[in-house]
């Protein structure tokens, strides 16, 4: 008898999960690049002291997104 556990742990299902996770992480990385561009544009439009911090944080965010994408590719 085939159980729910057998279906969800089969290689096909895991591959589907992996493709879905990697696709999501790739889109998320693109989103983080858009954030960098937008924050940079806004920081040039309105120059505040916190603008530089936000630019730095947007860069950290993009690097973290790239890290998650790599994690999904390598580990899952």
């Amino acid at each position, binding site marked *: 008898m085939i159980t729910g556990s057998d279906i969800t742990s089969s290689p096909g299902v895991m591959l589907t*999960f992996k493709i879905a*996770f990697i696709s999501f992480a790739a889109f998320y990385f693109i989103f983080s690049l858009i954030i960098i561009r937008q*924050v940079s544009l806004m920081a040039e*439009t309105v120059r505040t002291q916190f603008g530089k911090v936000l630019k730095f944080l947007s860069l950290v965010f993009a690097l973290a997104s790239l890290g998650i994408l790599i994690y999904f590719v390598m580990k899952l």
Partner: protein
Amino acid sequence: MNLRIFPAFFDHPQNISFAEQEVDERIELFLRQHWVKNIPWIFLTILAFIAPALLIQLDQFLKLNLFRPLPNEAITGGLIIWYMLIFAYALEKFLFWYYNIYIVTNIHLVDVDFLNLLFRQITEIELKDVESVRTQISGVFGPLFNFGNVIIETAAKDQASSFEDVPQPDVVADRIDDLRQTKKEGSE
């Protein structure tokens, strides 16, 4: 009541300037929406942050075993994606608040709109074109925290603007009115 973590009202701010600022133009007021406007998304973010832990507790309490058939990798990946989505939501909301700015200078009224990640709009109105300024404080939180809309009407119909949910709207309207009078007297 003012929170330094979400500053929204700057009178004669130092170290702030904007792209289209003229040489003899000085910033009188630099405004954002009142910090209270951030409460709904902060609350939702906290709720979403603790939701997986609550779901697991509920699953164990009711012995539903919803997650047992799933491989550990799928659960880990799902949790990472969930927290990535929450972070993206909170970041987008914060940037929306941070970069929706209203500036009152001695020459212009500037409305910087960060509508979404792909769309930005800057509207400038010359003070000499301002016909009238009025305020609108409504709801429960408006009078309680002293924030509301400042509605600016100009001679041109399509140039009307409003500063939405700004702190101390009466002070803002008074200042715009004073600057408008000074500008008009200066040009006569």
